[in-house]
């Protein structure tokens, strides 16, 4: 595996654990806070908004 894939996998696992720890009631809040923090860290509004569009574009039924 490349370093990038390793990094993504680490985030993937940590998010799964954090979402479980927060519980269904608090998951949304957790993810919203996480997104704002990432956005602030990135300081690239255009990129963040494009990524948000990408995430939203594949939410429709039948797609993963």
């Amino acid at each position, binding site marked *: 595996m490349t370093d990038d894939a390793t990094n993504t996998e680490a985030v993937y696992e940590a998010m799964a654990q954090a979402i479980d720890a927060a519980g269904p009631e608090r998951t949304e809040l957790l993810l*919203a*806070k996480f997104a*704002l923090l990432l956005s602030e860290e990135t300081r690239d509004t255009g990129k963040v908004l494009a990524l948000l569009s990408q995430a939203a574009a594949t939410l429709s039924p039948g797609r993963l």
Partner: protein
Amino acid sequence: MRPDGKGELESLYFNYPRFSAPEGAARDGLDRRKTVAIAGAGPVGMAAALALAREGVASVLIDNKDTFNDGSRAICVERQSYYMLESLGAVQPFLEKSLGWTKGRSFYRGKQILEFDMPDSEDEKFRPMYNIQQQYIEAFLYEAAAASPLIEIRWQSEVTGVRDIKNGVEVSVTDTLESYTFEADWLLACDGGKSPVRKMRGLRLKGENYEGRYVIADVQMDHDYPTIRRALFDPDCRPGGTVLIHRQPDNIWRIDYQLHDQESTEEAMREDNIRAGVAGVLHDIGHTGPWELEWWSVYTANTLALDDYRDGRVFFVGDSAHIVPIFGVRGLNNGFADAVNIGWKLGWVLNGKAAPALLDSYTPERRGATLDVFANASKSARFMTPPSHGWQLMRDAALSLALDHPFAGQLANPRQMRPYIYAGCPGVSPDGQGFTTGPEAGKVMCETRLEDGGWLSDGFGPGFNLLCFDPALAEAVRGLTSAENLTVLLLAPEGNAAQICGANAGSAYLVRPDRHIAARWLQASLQDVETAYGSATGGQGEYDD
């Protein structure tokens, strides 16, 4: 509303005067034609009358009430409004009574998440904001209006009809003694959010009704806290809701709290519920001493405006033309700006100093200001009163983060508004090329202290002003017209004024009577000034569309 057992106008701190309809000799000539009639003697109507009087134009105010509006209502008056009040000759009592402030604090679940300072410095003549109850605002404007021989006020007189006639309108009035009509060349509808004149003209406000409802309540108490606006998000007393707290003169504190969706307005307005609501807030801010309930009301956050602020010979001014959410404190402040805008323009047209086309710039400038408020106030409203699950979630995420991340706290900044920039409006020239700093064309002129210790604005004349740094240009412009129309301020090219203007020895700023910049040039010529002055007074061909 007031507590049980109190009279309708029985205040803890303010004596409401009682005005009667015109009596005796004052009834002679009620039906005489007037140049300008003003429907509504509230703060906006009186400001409009004073703005016209400043141009030497007489007006008559018609109001169905017998006293001032009841309750503190619009309490935050901004810096630019103080300049307007100064130009109307009414600012002194405001400075003596009101509480200036610069700072706001926001709290989330009892913890401070944001402290913001509005721009202020030793180079500012007035503070960014002042708190004062609306009764005082009306009383001080009334004193100025009553002292003017050009202003007549008819109380207990209701406008019941408006009919178009040649070159004017016929206004029908019913007072305590009779009904009569009179003709007026122009009518300013300053008759508030429910404007009867607007209904008579068959016009409707358009836009959105927000669901957020706020109780606004005044209490009198000894409470030790500076004049700092406090916003409480999700406090113990109102889980999920928002509370605002403002200090006012006379030991009066304004408490605004949001109603939950399931709370009915009728229930919330009951005195026992108001007392419980206020007590909860006071508990949260640690006030343990006694307090007295003074007055309360309910407010719904709306963004509504007329498409056109002019209808023939009728101009809509203030709340009759637009209703804005409470959070941006733009209701009365924009009402004052409307009144001053139409006041100087109508005055100049009536005096023959400007072409009638100047009046066509009222709607784009002032409706533009309203739409700008909508854009900003809607942001505030969505934060204070999230309209849906998505807005609620992101608001909660921001507040939750703000406890230890200041960047997120900035999202809770109420965006107390700056004055609107009239860029691109007819009569405002395109901004001068080459400037690296200084206020651009369309903006309100900024303030500074001059080398002699006085304020830059103290040198302004009653009409247009040219800030000029070149003696030869100053001399040439002075030859163009009288100082009453255009005052030339010759300033030092290395001085404080030149610095804030980003000016050199050849630069110039042309400032309108309402202190907005009509044009500026890094290198000005006499021809430039002449052209811009002509355009700003409705004389050039820019009004065709």
